[in-house]
């Protein structure tokens, strides 16, 4: 009886561990791409944007795609290798934190392409088989896009930033956010205090985002930007609740990396990264046999980065105009040039 029960339980566990999508996908295309992600693809932020980028690019290129999300850190490598063993042509890992796992798998699977979003500039050179490419949106420019809006919109003079983990790209976004906000406010003779970045230590714990946002609002922060996936969703919930309690929307949030205007009342705009074009370029390189060993940059200049739509109800027209001017200056490489 005990053995039968153990057998039934084991079988049930094995089935439940299969990703649902894996049960429904039938392979028809010549090429296949698989994405791994430690946050959820339904997080309304980073995970969702990266997944949509892959879906868009795969749709344009006629590739099959698969995803495994919400994986723990110790499962990065195993998840990648599982897809390698299933014969996927390209592994898409959207985050600097996957670097070690990607390099290890890339060494063991020389015929498979590994596209590392937010990978380091030196990472492709570290791949023994030359089969790793970094897709690198300019994190400083991302910070600028959000920071300029924060500097224009902050009334309290205090703004906040929430991170998931202390990654190089997160630090660069924070630095860009800080300098742009202070520069823009400085033009109006205002001073902006940017609270030190806080880290949830995870991209999934939305409750931490709620608590961080409440604590930062207590410190006077009235504009938020983040790089923490579902943690940011929690922060937006707390901001919405605070605005409701106050009877007016006076605390704002800036989304990234897709346009999330309308998702929450507090969202005044978004920094948008067209990861889809970067993934598509990788796919083209795979098909042409030229993949690997390079860094594909995403910038304001090549159109991979942009500012999303602004909330016309919350952002005054003159601020919209000035913000557009600042974005143009960034594109023309004249922002903070003086």
């Amino acid at each position, binding site marked *: 009886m005990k053995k039968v029960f153990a057998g039934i339980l084991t079988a049930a566990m094995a*089935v439940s561990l299969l990703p649902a999508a894996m049960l429904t996908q039938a392979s028809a295309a010549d090429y296949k791409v698989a994405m791994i992600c430690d946050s959820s693809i*339904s997080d309304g932020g980073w995970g969702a944007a990266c997944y949509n980028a892959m879906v868009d690019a795969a749709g344009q290129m006629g590739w099959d795609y698969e*995803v495994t999300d919400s994986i*723990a850190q110790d499962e990065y490598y195993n998840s990648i290798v599982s897809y390698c063993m299933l014969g996927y042509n390209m592994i898409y890992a959207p985050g600097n934190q996957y670097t070690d796992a990607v390099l290890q798998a890339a060494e063991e699977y020389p015929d498979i392409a590994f596209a590392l979003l937010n990978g380091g500039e030196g990472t492709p050179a570290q791949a023994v088989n030359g089969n790793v490419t970094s897709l690198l949106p300019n994190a400083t420019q991302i910070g600028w896009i959000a920071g300029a809006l924060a500097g224009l919109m902050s009334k309290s003079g205090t703004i906040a930033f929430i991170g998931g983990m202390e990654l190089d790209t997160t630090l660069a976004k924070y630095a860009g956010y800080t300098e742009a906000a202070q520069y823009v406010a400085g033009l109006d003779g205002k001073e902006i205090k940017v609270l030190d970045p806080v880290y949830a230590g995870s991209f999934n*714990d939305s*409750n931490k985002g709620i*608590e961080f946002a409440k*604590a930062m609002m207590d410190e006077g922060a009235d504009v938020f930007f983040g790089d923490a996936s579902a943690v940011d969703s929690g922060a937006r919930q707390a901001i919405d609740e605070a605005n409701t309690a106050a009877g007016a929307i006076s605390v704002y949030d800036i989304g990234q990396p897709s346009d999330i205007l309308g998702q929450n009342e507090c969202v005044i705009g978004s920094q948008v990264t067209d990861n889809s074009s970067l993934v598509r370029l990788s796919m083209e390189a795979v098909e042409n046999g030229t993949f690997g060993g390079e860094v594909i940059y995403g910038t304001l200049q090549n159109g991979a980065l942009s500012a999303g739509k602004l909330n016309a109800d919350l952002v005054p027209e003159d601020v919209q105009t000035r913000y557009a001017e600042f974005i143009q200056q960034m594109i023309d490489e004249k922002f903070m040039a003086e």
Partner: protein
Amino acid sequence: MNTAFIANLILATVRMAIPLLLISLGELYGQRAGMVNIGLEGLAAIGSLVGFLVSFVTGSNWLGLLCGALAGVAVNMIYAFATVTLCADHTVYGMAINIFAPALASFIYRVYFGSGSELSQITLMRGVAIPGLKNIPFFGDLLFNQTPMVYITVAIVIFTAIFFKRTQAGLNYKAVGEHPRAAATLGISVIRVKYLACVICGALAGIGGAYLTTCYSNTYTEGNVAGRGFIALAAVIFGRWTSGGILLACLFFGFCDALQIRLQVGSFGIPYQFFQMIPYIATIVVLTLIGAKQAGPKANGKPYRREQR
């Protein structure tokens, strides 16, 4: 450090302690009947998903909590059958629940919502302010402006204390965890009590998980239980297997977490990693001190075979 900082810190402590407290109380009912269930993380995970899903579909947070409880009970029956009827190892099946239940939750979420990237949100349970009392300075918001679940959780703590200390049924229940054979000679159905313990444990852990998605966060993300099931285990030991002790333990753990978040925001020029260590250091220190005088139920985790002498 001003009054507002302290008041907000205490409010954050309560918010973070309540789900922990519900899960810990579930474990208390389990361990008092000799059932050491380390699968709380899994039970809370399935409760969290079902609570969110039902609230999302029906718009009723109460129904979500109820179904979260039922889901916790249903999954915990696997553990109950294996450990009570088949006398299998508690730790092994507890771990199995921790692997199985979150994966099952993930599977159900994907089946219902598909592989789409849209963020699903629900309306959270509203707080109930007690007129007049909520305006009391400092303590008003803390004690009299919470969701009904906070008041219910405190009521469960009080009921549990009375049940185990002042009622015959509670003493019989505890006897099963202390000396099941002696309890059986007094006519107590040990097997029935152990199954009842698993039902209560599953229900409270499921509600603890459902609380996260019906009263705390309006979205569901995989992994949102975030280790609370394991901290709840520590809270039961820290709380010396009493509901009052567990209440204090959960408030302590909630306070440590709330404090590290508030200190990160204040920063004071200290690396944030230092603050993130606070809850873990506090857990280790407390368990080291408490562990020296362990006073758990004597038959904890031991299989009960009726015919064995």
